């Protein structure tokens, strides 16, 4: 049982580490504003798939690590990720049966909420930033969602059967 749980957690943890690497990877100036929120998308994906193991608590931990690596306010990304993880887990039964286009469409508001929370916290803390920086990731994240889902579902299927 213990071994089974550990082996189930490993791919997810690896995916988060990989997501963090994508998040801190340098991008050309032109596309940097459109870097998808990989970690937010991963949190949504795993909260949909395994809501009992990966919900608000792990989202919070991921957020804290993200805060430290990006040098933002400690707790900013943690709070935003926790909130979208909650919403996802709350509606995971409905969302799971959505066909891919509909699911993709419902990712958009989730990512928008995530960015809005970050924007809001920045505003309250008095950190000014360009507003366009908040919209790029929402759009690119939604567009990248089907690809991410296909990739991760495949990986998950293979680890389970293997």
């Amino acid at each position, binding site marked *: 049982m213990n071994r089974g749980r550990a082996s189930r957690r490993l791919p997810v943890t690896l995916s988060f580490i990989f997501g963090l690497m994508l998040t801190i990877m*340098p991008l050309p100036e032109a596309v940097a504003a459109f870097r998808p929120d990989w970690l937010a998308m991963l949190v949504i994906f795993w909260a949909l798939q395994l809501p009992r193991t990966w919900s608000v*608590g792990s989202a*919070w931990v991921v957020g804290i690590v993200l805060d430290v*690596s990006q040098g933002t306010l400690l*707790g900013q990304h943690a*709070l935003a990720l*926790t909130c979208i993880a909650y919403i996802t887990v709350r509606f995971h039964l409905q969302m799971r049966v959505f066909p891919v286009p509909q699911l993709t469409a419902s990712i958009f508001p989730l990512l928008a909420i995530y960015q809005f929370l970050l924007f809001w*916290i920045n505003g309250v803390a008095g*950190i000014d930033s360009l507003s366009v920086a908040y919209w790029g990731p929402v759009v690119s994240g939604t567009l990248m969602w089907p690809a991410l889902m296909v990739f991760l579902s495949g990986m998950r299927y293979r680890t389970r059967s293997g």
Partner: protein
Amino acid sequence: MVASRDSSSNPGRIPALGLRLLGLIFISILLMYFDNRDNHLDTVRKSIGAAVYPLRVIVDAPVRLWRWVGDATRSHNDLELQLARLNAERLLTNARLQKFNALEAENARLRALLDARAQVRDKTRVAEIMSVDANPYNHSLVINVGTLDGVFDGQALVAVDGVVGQVIEAGLMTSQAMLISDTDHALPVEVNRNGLRTIVVGSGKIDQLELPFVVNNADIRVGDLLVTSGLGGAFPAGYPVAIVDSITRIPQEPYADVTAVPSASLGQVREVMLIFSAPAPESGAAGNE
């Protein structure tokens, strides 16, 4: 966490989900409050930051490898050309340095005559910029040295051709620095030609800086070099910052609309120098905010 089997055939409510959410939101808000107020959480940040370090190294590795491959496979011809260029450059700088030594001695003498504090040469240390993106909301970069190498918060970062920025978060082995082009960054400067003091503020664009507090009738011209004035306490005096590239004087407004181009190519620097000023940095006199 409840260790029940995870399957879609056994749906149901996740226990205490809302409660956990509220608890975590509360903790987050507390954390943010204390983090924003004062730096009580520095140790927490540093310890988690040390865990992120290997990731930064891994992300940086491909770029480093690519550069290494490029260096290793460069042709003999190229290397010879580069060697010749560097030698010529060295000759030129050496010649200039001779004059500089004489000037420095003269400067020290004159300062002694004036009873002014002698300007000592700043100690420096070279740091490499890691190919790692940091905060998306501001202009920042990650360098490969940290508190173990003596880096401190607020330390000035200078490239070969001008000021780059300052350290905002000195980690254990890597540190984050803010570029002068960040909108949150302000830097006290003076016009090299006549000593007119003003403040350079980042514009949010990597190749542009703003001078919002230059009065309409101030003696400033396009092409003027701006150097650090050393007034903020964070930056030592006399390092080039930017060159004025446009001045728009609007008669109704109190201040002219002045922009400048940073001397250092902020988007392309690979190596920077950290400056350890001779006097200890005054606390609370950082150049930003």
